[in-house]
């Protein structure tokens, strides 16, 4: 065993407090880092991996067969820049049965509306290798394979062998279920079947030599459509759009987790630097002894690095394990949505490897500066200086405080930080970051809550229409009678009947869902980002994510198609929340698409705003009794999983970082008390009480806490301005200023006190310990 190792090991074992503080600080920071990196990786890697395995279509284009021939398409696809091509495949849009419930609680039922059906003889091929996860591929007319996320069926009746009745099409037998990340079709039939389905488009799937950016995909589209007759291209879909859709929720977590990860990392570096520099300063005599014994400067540096690295590595390893454990449920929550059945999000090994290598590297870097001080320190000075601070430092400030009318313990405490300005600066920075974290977290939670509430605060009860096909009781009353019954119930203020209908948007290969509202639809108005709520026929409102995805804006026109009928509509407003494939419109727009919507039960839910003071549970019970077949549930007031996850993980990370900041203060007070044992003994010998000693030590940190609050709150506000819009932008939405201005004077005052709270929390224990120091003990140590 080398002398360096022996001395380091002894220091690690004997200096338990220092060892414990370093290990704990590194552990908590590592947990935050693993979670942040894990989410960052999960947000993109699983999609890319699966997409590459399937040789997914980077561009799905549909062409009008009346305007362009297959030969022309093949010729265009042979141009440079096209790496692979599949198709043309005949494509038809059929309308699925509408007699099934949609969005009933706990049920995944097939949405009624259009299904894009493509004729393909083979699931494999150079592009878009469809994953057939159950049954077999279509072999002859009369068979169909449905696109479903792996392992998922829509309702209990959906199985291989079941029959599908689509209006205007022959009866089809389901022979298999398949998935594709390319989202190229909702179902596949054999090419021989297509003529009977009356195809309206030719689908071609492309992969390009360069496709990493939207510009490259656009350039690819320009390449394959150059020279084709005008109007030949009906629509196109970039894989980047699909990827954005599928990873949006996960992406929402990344900005704030990264912010917390970076904050955690910086706090960890600062505290490690503070701990190590404190160890060096308080270890002057130790360093002097080592050097007088013949330790070379490099050996002294090695001793101090090992002293810090040993608990640091333990903290990093444990932190990685705990981070893995913490990240898994979070990943599960983030990726548990509909689209994520395509892939399983797991923590990549590189996250653990990077953390396990990176954290010790950070510790070494943080330790190097103070350790190099030990390297340079002359042995004679180290031994003679002992642990006393240099004379004269901060004396002027301390003298000034001494002249004030403050109690002596307080004035002495206020002067203490000036005796070790470097250490005080590091502690102050830690406190600033602690307050920044608390400020960011509280603002983030308020904004997220406001964002989630934006679509929920106007309705207290939502009743779903029962569906006999999934074992529920269907209502006996007709749609209009149900609405009338609802309006007659005591406590009802407003009623809106909601009809979700899948629509085809002309010019796009994707399906959009229309929410058609009847009744008091003005009351449904959610928080608007731009424009106004839809009130008349031909008007729709969409979410900001919709306009971003489809390149539209308020005032633009689009054409909706259902069962062969078309209706032009105008976007009159943009809402804060909502889906990127969803439009909201008044009932009149549905009647334009379906002349008599009353013949089919389109309405599958009734939204009710209750009169003030009405008990929601009692109301729902009365409603269930009054209208059998209606399943009322309380709406709003609770929190959805996104809110719970974001607010929950924010709280956990904030507590972690605040605890780490308090540990930094704890360490500083321990070092100060250790260095000032002689002063403390002297003060006690002339009559300072233990309580006054505690007050003095706590005051020294509380003063830094006040400064930490004054600096940390504005930085936290700025971080909130950066992080929250980035999160909302990640899901394709935007926030109105009202949701960003979540701060009020009392809340800000409390946040200013957060620094003092962290400082006092960290200082109290070692301050009390210093107060208990006996004079005899101090003299003995001298």
């Amino acid at each position, binding site marked *: *065993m*080398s*002398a360096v190792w*022996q*001395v380091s090991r*002894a*220091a690690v*074992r*004997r*200096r338990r407090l220092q060892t414990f503080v370093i290990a704990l600080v590194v552990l908590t920071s590592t947990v935050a880092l693993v979670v942040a990196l894990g989410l960052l990786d999960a947000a993109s890697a699983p999609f890319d991996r699966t997409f590459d395995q399937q040789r997914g279509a980077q561009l799905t284009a549909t062409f009008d067969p009346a305007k362009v021939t297959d030969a022309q398409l093949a010729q265009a696809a042979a141009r440079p820049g096209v790496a692979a091509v599949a198709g043309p495949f005949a494509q038809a849009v059929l309308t699925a049965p509408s007699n099934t419930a949609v969005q009933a609680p706990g049920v995944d039922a097939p949405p009624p509306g259009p299904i894009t059906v493509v004729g393909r003889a083979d699931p494999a091929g150079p592009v878009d290798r469809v994953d057939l996860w159950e049954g077999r591929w279509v072999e002859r007319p009369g068979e169909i394979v449905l696109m479903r996320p792996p392992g998922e069926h829509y309702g209990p009746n959906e199985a291989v062998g079941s029959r599908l009745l689509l209006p205007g099409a022959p009866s089809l037998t389901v022979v298999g279920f398949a998935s594709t990340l390319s989202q190229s079709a909702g179902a596949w039939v054999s090419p021989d079947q297509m003529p009977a389905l009356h195809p309206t488009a030719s689908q071609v799937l492309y992969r390009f030599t360069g496709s990493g950016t939207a510009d490259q995909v656009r350039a690819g589209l320009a390449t394959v459509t150059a020279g084709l007759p005008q109007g030949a291209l009906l629509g196109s879909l970039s894989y980047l759009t699909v990827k954005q859709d599928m990873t949006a929720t996960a992406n929402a977590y990344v900005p704030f987790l990264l912010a917390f990860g970076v904050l955690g990392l910086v706090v960890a570096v600062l505290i490690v630097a503070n701990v190590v520099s404190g160890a060096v300063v308080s270890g002057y*005599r*130790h360093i*002097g*002894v*080592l*050097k*007088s*014994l*013949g*330790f*070379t*400067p*490099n*050996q002294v540096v090695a001793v101090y690095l090992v002293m810090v690295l040993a608990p640091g590595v333990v903290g990093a390893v444990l932190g990685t394990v705990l981070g893995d454990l913490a990240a898994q449920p979070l990943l599960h929550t983030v990726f548990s949505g509909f689209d994520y059945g395509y892939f399983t999000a797991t923590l990549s090994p590189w996250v653990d490897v990077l953390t396990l290598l990176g954290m010790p590297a950070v510790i070494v870097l943080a330790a190097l500066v103070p350790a190099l001080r030990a390297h340079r320190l*002359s*042995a*004679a*000075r180290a*031994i*003679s200086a002992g642990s006393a601070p240099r004379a004269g430092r901060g004396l002027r400030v301390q003298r000034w405080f001494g002249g004030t009318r403050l109690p002596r313990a307080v004035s002495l405490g206020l002067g203490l930080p000036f005796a070790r300005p470097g250490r005080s600066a590091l502690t102050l920075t830690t406190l600033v970051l602690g307050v920044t974290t608390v400020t960011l977290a509280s603002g983030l939670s308020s904004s997220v809550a406001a964002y989630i509430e934006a679509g929920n605060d106007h309705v207290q009860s939502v009743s779903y229409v029962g569906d006999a096909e999934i074992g529920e009781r269907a209502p006996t009353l007709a749609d209009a009678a149900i609405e009338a019954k609802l309006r007659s119930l005591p406590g009802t203020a407003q009623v809106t009947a909601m009809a979700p209908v899948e629509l085809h948007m002309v010019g796009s290969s994707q399906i959009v869902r229309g929410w058609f509202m009847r009744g008091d639809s003005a009351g449904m108005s959610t928080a608007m980002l731009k424009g106004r709520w839809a009130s008349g026929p031909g008007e729709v409102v969409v979410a900001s994510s919709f306009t971003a995805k489809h390149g539209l804006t308020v005032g633009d026109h689009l054409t909706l198609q259902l069962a062969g009928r078309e209706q032009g509509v105008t976007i009159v407003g943009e809402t804060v929340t909502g889906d990127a494939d969803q439009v909201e419109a008044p009932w009149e727009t549905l009647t334009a698409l379906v002349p008599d919507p009353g013949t089919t039960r389109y309405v599958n839910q009734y939204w009710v705003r209750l009169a003030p003071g009405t008990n929601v549970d009692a109301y729902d019970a009365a409603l269930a009794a009054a209208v059998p077949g209606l399943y009322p549930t309380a709406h709003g007031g609770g929190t959805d999983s996104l809110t719970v996850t974001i607010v929950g993980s924010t709280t956990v990370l904030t507590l972690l970082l605040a605890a780490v900041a308090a540990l930094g203060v704890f360490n500083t007070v321990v070092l100060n008390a250790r260095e000032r044992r002689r002063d403390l003994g002297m003060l006690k010998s002339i009559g300072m009480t233990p309580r006054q000693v505690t007050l003095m030590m706590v005051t020294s940190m509380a003063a830094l806490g006040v400064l930490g609050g004054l600096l940390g709150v504005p930085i936290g506000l700025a971080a909130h301005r950066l992080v929250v819009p980035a999160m909302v932008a990640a899901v394709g939405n935007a926030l109105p200023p009202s949701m960003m201005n979540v701060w009020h004077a009392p809340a800000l005052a409390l946040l200013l006190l957060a620094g003092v709270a962290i400082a006092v929390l960290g200082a109290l224990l070692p301050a009390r310990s210093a107060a208990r120091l006996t004079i005899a003990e101090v003299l003995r140590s001298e």
Partner: protein
Amino acid sequence: MTTGDSSNAGGTEAGQVVVHLDGVRKEYGESTALDGVSLDIRAGEAVAVMGPSGCGKSTLLNMVAGLDRPTSGRVVVNGEDLASMSETGLALFRRRRIGMIFQFFNLLDDLPALDNVALAAQLTGVSVAQARRRALELLDELGIADRRNVYPAALSGGERQRVSVARALMNRPALLLADEPTGALDSHAGEQVMDLLIDLNQIGQTLLIVTHDQRLATRCASRLVEVADGRVVRQRSLERTA
């Protein structure tokens, strides 16, 4: 008292100059700690340096130990010019040639007595087992072998100083430096340390002792060097008293 082969310690012959200071000057900012000190110490000598507080005694000791560098002048110890050495070279020099005893012992609080002593040998590449064997021999000779597993904080002042002496002797140094070795001890423990130093010198160990204690000087030293204001003001031979 054998304490190993302290005679001919560090490979020096009796009468050979072990320490040669030539016009050594040391300044700290505007104050001068040493002002042109010249001094020779021969192998086997026991030299005591005395003088009032702040006269430069400890600075002189630090120069000889290679713990500090002179502003000007030469410091040659055992034939090696310390001014030409790097920090690493000085460290290697100290571990091979110098043993130091301090007023406040300067033991490593994290190591028990035995490991404090053994550490000095381990630095020179001696195995742990071998170093501990020799450390135990030394502690035994100094009468504190039974305290080998005790940490410094639990040792008495006299015991700590004996551990410190054992550590200083581990590598059979050419020169044993003692800075107020009895300054923190009671009279009984002080007497024991004095006896120890006399025994060491009698078997050939070269000693340089810095002290305020006239009794320590006259009991242990064969020559007295008096320093005032950073200068050697007088040197005289001493007859050891009992």
